[in-house]
């Protein structure tokens, strides 16, 4: 929202009286300080992660097996964790994104202002506030106790986290598709499903993908839901459907409390990896939004 230009002159064509002006200036300064206060820790975190992580970063680091914590930094790496993150997050995305898109389609194309649609939309927003650890406990109670630890369980937990986010962002994008496009499609004799799949969805797809990427970025960084679902191990497990697994954030958590400098260094390297993944996804989302969201002349 663009700022309205502040008038300089008071009723007597002089500046606002001294005290009022001073208060105004102080307020502005405070607002700027707020931003600086937030900038400082961000910069510090990023600088630390980059500085410490880059020392250990290498292709070997990303692909080598996880060594015992006591070993120094130049031994081993986080290979199994990278594999785990990729397969678990990919599975979670494959589950949450299509279901989320369909749910948003219901909200926007079918449900409209009806009670059920408003209820679902409201609780979708509420669900984004459910702590991620609760999702982990949920999948533990309902799945792990019956089927054991696995990457799939972790993916289910992450999927539950992603679902409401995808629904909300997709719903926003579908709302933006101009109605005349739908009418044009109906007028050619399309069914509602056809209109949705062949005109509405392709039109909104840029924003939908962008929203999904942001959901993926969030899921990739989550640790808590995985604690009770994948049972962090240190061996690589290419089978995401059975057997315990690990992930990059899980390894960071395991190493963060380790007294060994080697383990800590590996944690920094993993943190750097995580940050880079998140940033790349965020930038990709930005680019897609900028280039693929034009709907009408």
């Amino acid at each position, binding site marked *: 929202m663009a700022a309205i230009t502040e008038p300089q002159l008071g009723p007597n064509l002089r500046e606002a009286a001294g005290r009022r002006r001073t208060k105004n200036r102080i307020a502005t300064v405070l607002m700027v300080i707020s931003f600086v206060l937030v900038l400082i820790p961000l910069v510090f975190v990023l600088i630390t992660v980059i500085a410490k992580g880059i020392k250990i970063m290498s292709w070997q680091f990303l692909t080598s097996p996880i060594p015992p914590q006591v070993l120094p930094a130049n031994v081993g790496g986080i290979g199994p964790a990278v594999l785990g993150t990729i397969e678990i997050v990919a599975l979670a995305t494959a589950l949450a994104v299509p279901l989320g898109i369909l749910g948003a389609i219901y909200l926007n194309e079918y449900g*409209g202002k009806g009670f059920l649609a408003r209820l679902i939309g409201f609780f979708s927003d509420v669900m984004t506030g459910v702590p991620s650890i609760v999702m982990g406990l949920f999948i533990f109670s309902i799945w792990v106790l019956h089927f054991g630890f696995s990457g799939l369980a972790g993916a289910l937990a992450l999927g539950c986290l992603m679902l409401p986010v995808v629904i909300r962002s997709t719903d926003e994008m579908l709302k933006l598709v*101009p109605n*005349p496009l739908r009418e*044009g499609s109906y*007028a050619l*004799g399309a*069914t509602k499903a056809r209109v949705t799949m062949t005109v509405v969805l*392709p039109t909104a797809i840029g924003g939908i993908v962008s929203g999904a990427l942001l959901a993926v970025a969030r899921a990739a960084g989550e640790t808590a839901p995985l604690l009770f679902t994948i049972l962090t191990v240190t061996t690589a497990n290419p089978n995401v459907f059975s057997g315990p697994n690990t992930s990059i954030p899980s390894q960071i958590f395991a190493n963060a409390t380790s007294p060994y400098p080697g383990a800590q260094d590996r944690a920094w390297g993993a943190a750097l990896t995580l940050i880079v993944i998140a940033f790349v996804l965020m930038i990709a989302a930005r680019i897609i939004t900028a280039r693929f969201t*034009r709907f009408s*002349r």
Partner: protein
Amino acid sequence: MEQPEQDVTVNPPLPKTATEPQMLPEQPAVQQPAPAPGEHVFDVDNVSCYYSAFRAVTDVSLAIHENEITAFIGPSGCGKTTVLRTLNRMNDLVPGARMEGDIRYRGASLYGKDVSPIAVRRRIGMVFQKPNPFPKSIYDNVAYGPRINGERSKRKLDEIVERSLRQAALWDEVKDRLNKSGLGLSGGQAQRLCIARTLAVEPDVVLMDEPCSALDPIATSAIEDLMRDIKSRYTIVIVTHNMQQATRVSDRTAFYSVLRNEESDTRTGVLVEYGPTEQIFHDPSDPRTQAYVTGQMG
């Protein structure tokens, strides 16, 4: 979609060296109303339209004739667009919209129990006031209708696209950029693209809701030429607030007006007069028509 009468209809084979598609013999500038052929395309029978409790249009009865251009004219709020949209059941999409009375399409009720609005709209196409090309390529815009009807053959689709764009007098301008986005066209071109898109499914009727109101005079004129060119193959009903346009293109004109209900302070549309365009504009029976067409009433 196979058309058995393909060889019978006046359908020019795609000329290889033509610069312009030679469609039809020239039409005279002032439309002579054709004598009504055997069957009416539409019989509108005491139709009233409601949006929830609000009665938008009351007691409309008229018949649309084959291969004619029928114009609906009248001031704002008189329900002409509402009536137009009942002809292809687009009002079904508006929550709370309701219709009393009946509309028969070639003898059978459009609103019968078993009638599918999808099938209705495949036969009765519509062009909207503001051009609404899909954010797809020009080719995909025109091929959209045939594709959802099941046409898969690339060769057939190419044919259909070219034929439709020629009928819409757009082919020459876009033939080299068929895979560019439809959004990149000017207003007049975009509207012709929408017309081509509508013609691609070979409908029986083309409804047009103020198709030129968002266009400049040159684009408007191109579209009016187009309407005259395709008249022999389609039945056209056009809503327009431009009286000169009605006199230029239409064979018959229906004049709607607004009835104000003093007690409930509501307005309802009514059909005042309907007849050959020549008569409506030069010798109307109803004084309200007279007032409107001579510009005394807005």
